[in-house]
């Protein structure tokens, strides 16, 4: 009788679509909001995932998450190196630096803009000094009559706005090994892939040099033709890299702690929760880029040694040894990631905010799909009554309804998850990196969404089933 159930279901296209749309909406919203939540949580651990080559993170025992900077004495580095099972240990500085921007937009523009674009810009009408969009216009309606609430224009269009200060994430990697720096190979082009767009890690050995992440660079130097490859006309990766190179040739520099920092390279970095530009430099130099303090060592990155049999010691065991021997906090990268995520889950309202949205999606999906499915069953009640009169047992009728629910559930789930995944892909840039919107769909989210959809379908069908089971077949003789 399954084919009868399916034909009954799809026969009424409007109802069928209504149920599927309800379930699609629920599945899409749960997956999408869940993915954004997971993406945000991953961003909280961006630094941890970007550091490769080290097994262990050692830190002040009071550190709860990766951005919770509690500096330690430099002597702790030697203490960690002395723990049995530690192959090597290197320092890593992490802090929130203040970058004073000293560039002259005219110079950079002349270096990076194609001549025809530059000419068009100069000859064209000036852009609005106060950019706005539909949201700011809406907000203006509620603003008090007096006062200037206009958004500051991009610095490019107002030279008076240069020499402002931007907050950056400053990372100081070990001077000799450079452990903690992004993998050195180029992002595009032949050879082993790394995360350097322009320049090499060795350039960091030049005096006063720093490497900035690509997205952060765009934020630090707005209007300097550093946007991602243009779509119209289509720009190749090589042309984009050439633009970045041209920018670096203009010797851009910033000031941190009144010291000059010259940008010698551009790298790719996982977007962090704060979305601040990431500045890489050597450990010794990083300390100079920040106001001097007695304690400057933020993290110690360590590698576990091999045991006597030549087998690598489990990082968890070595971490435990470090904790016992030094009293410091020591965690594997994975454990530190979970600690960081747990901190955000417990101490921020993010899970509640997203949970509410997901719950609303679940509720709305349940309401739409459940109500439509129930209506569908009720409108077919006479048909089900006829089937019962003709000798179809309650079990078979229930099986028909459950099959119908399963079919719409599967279709709604498939379309919803598909749409959500498509949305996720659309948020990536051309190299597959996340853009402004944090979006990550772990496989665990898919069974969770499936379970929610199954719950909605079961709930919707149960209401219908009890109605049909209680139905007297004699209803068929009532006109």
């Amino acid at each position, binding site marked *: 009788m399954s084919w*009868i159930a399916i034909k009954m279901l799809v026969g009424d296209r409007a109802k069928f679509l209504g149920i599927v749309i309800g379930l699609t909406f629920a599945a899409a919203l749960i997956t999408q909001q869940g993915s954004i939540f997971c993406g945000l949580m991953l961003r909280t651990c961006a630094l941890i995932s970007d550091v490769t080559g080290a097994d262990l993170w050692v830190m002040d025992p009071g550190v709860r998450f990766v951005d919770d900077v509690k500096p330690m004495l430099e002597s702790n580095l030697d203490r960690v190196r002395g723990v049995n099972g530690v192959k090597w240990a290197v320092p890593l500085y992490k802090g929130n630096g203040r970058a004073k921007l000293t560039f002259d937009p005219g110079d950079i523009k002349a270096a990076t803009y194609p001549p025809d674009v530059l000419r068009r810009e100069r000859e064209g009408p000036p852009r609005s000094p106060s950019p706005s969009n539909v949201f700011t216009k809406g907000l203006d309606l509620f603003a008090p009559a007096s006062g200037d609430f206009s958004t500051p224009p991009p610095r490019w269009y107002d030279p008076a706005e240069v020499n402002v200060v931007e907050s950056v994430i400053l990372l100081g990697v070990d001077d000799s090994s450079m452990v903690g720096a992004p993998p050195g190979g180029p992002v595009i082009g032949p050879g082993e892939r790394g995360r350097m767009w322009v320049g090499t890690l060795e350039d960091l050995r030049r005096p006063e040099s720093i490497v900035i992440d690509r997205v952060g660079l765009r934020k630090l130097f707005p209007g300097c033709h550093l946007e991602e490859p243009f779509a119209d006309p289509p720009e190749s990766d090589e042309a984009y890299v050439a633009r970045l190179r041209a920018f670096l040739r203009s010797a851009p520099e910033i000031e941190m702690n009144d010291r000059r920092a010259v940008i010698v390279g551009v790298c790719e970095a996982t977007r962090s929760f704060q979305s601040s530009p990431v500045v890489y430099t050597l450990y010794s130099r990083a300390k100079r880029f920040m106001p001097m303090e007695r304690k400057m060592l933020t993290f110690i990155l360590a590698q576990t040694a091999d045991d006597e049999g030549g087998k690598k010691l489990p990082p968890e065991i070595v971490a435990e040894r470090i904790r016992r021997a030094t009293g410091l906090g020591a965690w594997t990268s994975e454990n530190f990631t979970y600690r960081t995520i747990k901190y955000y889950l417990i101490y921020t309202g993010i899970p509640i905010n997203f949970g509410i949205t997901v719950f609303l999606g679940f509720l709305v999906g349940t309401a739409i799909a459940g109500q439509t499915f129930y209506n569908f069953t009720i409108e077919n009640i006479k048909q089900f009554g006829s089937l019962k009169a003709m*000798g*179809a047992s309650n079990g078979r009728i229930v099986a028909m309804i459950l099959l119908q629910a399963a079919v719409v559930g599967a279709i709604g789930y498939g379309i919803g998850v598909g749409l959500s995944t498509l949305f996720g892909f659309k948020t990536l840039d051309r190299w597959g990196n996340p853009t402004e919107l944090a979006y990550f769909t772990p496989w665990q989210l898919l069974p969770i969404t499936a379970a929610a959809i199954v719950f909605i379908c079961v709930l919707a069908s149960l209401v219908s089933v009890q109605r049909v089971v209680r139905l007297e*077949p004699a209803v068929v*003789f009532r006109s």
Partner: protein
Amino acid sequence: MPADAPPKADSSPAGPSVAVRVRGLTKHFGRGDQLVKALDGVDLDLYSGQMSLIVGPSGCGKTTLLSVIAGILDADEGEVAVFDEAITKMGDRAKTRFRARRIGFVFQQYNLLPALTAAENASIPLVIAGWKKGPAVAKASEVLASIGMAKKVGSLPSQLSGGQMQRVAIARALVHDPQLLVCDEPTAALDHETGLTVMELLRESAVRSDRAVVVVTHDNRVFHFGDRIAHMDDGRVDKVEDRAPDRSAA
């Protein structure tokens, strides 16, 4: 038997076997002040090889009686035996199985599934009996062809006229070769001419020596199709007319 019910036993002569035996059937609906006695001690015998009509004014209990006979409604008191099987003593499951095997239904509003073609609709009893879709639809198409609907086997109910839909319903009722065919006002939704055609079709295709056909109707223009006519009023069978030639002779 209730005291106010006519004690008239159904005195049928010898001949065709009794297909449906109804004794002292009572059925109430509602409670307290709202209590309605739909059947009030009905006694009735219906025979195989005949088309029996149950007639009477609206609300007299015809459809209730048919529902109990067909095993889709439980009686409060009394007994109904269909081909010697006491349907009123069966449990729900047994009754469901009995209906699937032994009874065919024709409804006033046809009750065709709108998403299924004529052949698919007609095949439903076979599917309920466990047939696969292909053979069931093939058999249903044959039955439809036998009642002049060969060209409409692939049509949806929305593409059929009222008469054609009732033909499909008749094919559906006959496709699994039931012993008892119950028809509830089969002509009520049809114009007079189409109603007559449907009744003729029922007589020609449904009435067989080993099958009983019971039709509930209040359409006196089709009374002449009945071999045996039970007149009901106020929940009781007032009168039973035998019109079949062989039965009159007996």
